[in-house]
């Protein structure tokens, strides 16, 4: 009851539009210190993005800019459209025929929602890691090779080199080099997730989408994956959904809070992580990061 109350009050406060950030110009202030490779250059610009399933809107009017080489965390309670949002960024939303996406997502100036976009090529540029590690029931080697072959990124002996390189990148090489041809399903959960990251980064994407990448893992594996994400963030732009606020604080340069208002998900506030957690501008953000709502 209490939560609902906070929710309704805060949502109304926002929709009344009294303050300047009630509009879509969210609080992207000055870029604060992150890793040096997090540059203040927009790589993805999302404008008026709405998403509906069978006509029921689950996400409305999202405006958000993602910066190159930075980690952006998407936080918010379950069911507020974070994962749907993520899956529109690589058009995985296409797989659900009932899902319609409108608005604009510009990746380096090109609207990826356009029907002319080559989805296969787009998904090479925008890799995705899922909540539950999902290696294919094939050998470790084959898991990585499939994508490389599809996109003709390597052939012959080049394949082996790319496999080794991507496994080294995720710190898995020494653990698996003697059993590359045995099944990926024999790996532990944390290793499987690293393999999934390896097969995504083998394609040299520009962006990595992570959908709660640690929520199915134990604390030690979580720490390994977190360190890995931190290392990778210089080479890739990372957008991750997380329910773990500590994780967002530890990793993310930017954080965006999503919330369900009147049945549809909306972006409430976006800004440098430190601001979101220490100086939230929206009442809901303050309530959520302090554990009072959500």
């Amino acid at each position: 009851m209490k939560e609902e109350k906070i929710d309704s009050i805060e949502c109304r406060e926002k929709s009344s539009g009294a303050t300047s950030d009630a509009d879509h110009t969210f609080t992207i202030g000055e870029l604060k210190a992150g890793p040096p490779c997090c540059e203040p250059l927009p790589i993805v610009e999302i404008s008026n993005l709405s998403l509906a399933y069978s006509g029921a809107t689950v996400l409305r009017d999202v405006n958000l800019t993602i910066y190159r080489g930075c980690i952006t965390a998407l936080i918010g309670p379950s069911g507020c459209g974070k994962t749907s949002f993520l899956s529109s960024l690589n058009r995985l939303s296409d797989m659900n025929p009932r899902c319609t996406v409108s608005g604009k997502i510009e990746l380096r100036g090109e609207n990826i929602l356009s029907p002319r976009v080559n989805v296969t090529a787009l998904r090479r540029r925008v890799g995705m890691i899922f909540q539950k590690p999902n290696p294919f029931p094939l050998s470790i080697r084959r898991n990585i090779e499939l994508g490389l072959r599809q996109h003709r990124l390597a052939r012959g002996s080049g394949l082996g080199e790319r496999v080794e390189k991507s496994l080294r990148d995720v710190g898995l090489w020494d653990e698996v080099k003697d059993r590359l041809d045995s099944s990926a399903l024999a790996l532990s959960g944390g290793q499987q997730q690293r393999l999934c990251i390896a097969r995504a980064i083998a394609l040299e994407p520009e962006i990595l989408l992570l959908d709660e990448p640690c929520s199915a893992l134990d604390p030690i594996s979580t720490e390994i994956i977190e360190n890995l994400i931190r290392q990778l963030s210089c080479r890739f732009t990372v957008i991750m959904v997380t329910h773990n606020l500590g994780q967002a604080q530890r990793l993310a340069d930017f954080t965006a809070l999503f919330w369900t208002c009147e049945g549809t998900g909306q972006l409430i506030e976006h800004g440098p992580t430190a601001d979101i957690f220490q100086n939230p501008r929206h009442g809901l953000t303050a309530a959520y990061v302090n554990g009072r709502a959500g």
Partner: protein
Amino acid sequence: MSPYRTDRILIGTLRCAAVVSGLIVAVVALFLVSESVPALRQIGPYRFFTDSAWHPAPHSGESTFNLVPMIVGTLTVTAGALALATPLGLGSAMFLRFYAPPKLGVIYRKIIELLAGIPSVVFGFWGLVTIVPLINSIHAPGASLLAGICILAIMILPTVALVSDAAFEVVPKEYVKGAAALGLSRWATIRGVVIPSAKSGLFTAIILQTGRALGETMAVLMVCGNVVQVPKSVFEPVRTLTANIALEMAYALDPHRSALFVSGLLLLTLVAGLVLLADVLSRRYECSQ
């Protein structure tokens, strides 16, 4: 022992059901063996393969019991039917699961289920009045190995399609999503991810169908011509082991009757071998996971 009475009754009932099902197989196998023993004793196992022909009850002279033409007939009809039905069945299952619009998929699946439910004698009858004349117009006499292959292929096709479809259905959605997220094309996803994960189910589909094809009697009997000979081309008539039993059972006396049981035993052994093979293959598949 469970403290609940209903549980104990249930367990007892289930045990009985299991024992009865197991016993039936054992009794049939024993019966086949015991009926075959006189022929195996009198004629000996080798003469079934080395005799000059199949003349189990001649008006004069010595009986001969060569089963080889019938074995060849059974194996060629089965192999031909599998060669036709497997790619068609797999293909239609793939279409159903990965390419067909959902509504069409539902209708298509219903049609295939209906096809699977048509009794074999109807297939045989249909084959006799359409396929046999058609083949006859190309090459006489029409009733032939080819006709048998066609009819059998049509008969096992729906089950291959349905069992493969079921095997594709249980491939976890995460695999398909993962493949899509890597930008794999639909065909690369099917070939690289879906088929390998559905392998065990697909093998089972094919092996079960082999068993069914080996055992099919009525339709094959109606279109194959039933001449006891090793066919030199697909247009020549053949007789299968099953047709042989069905045709001669009514008038066979010992040792002819017992020889027919030997061919039944042979069929049972073939099918048992297939079941074992299916088991070994699926186990090997599980190990490789």
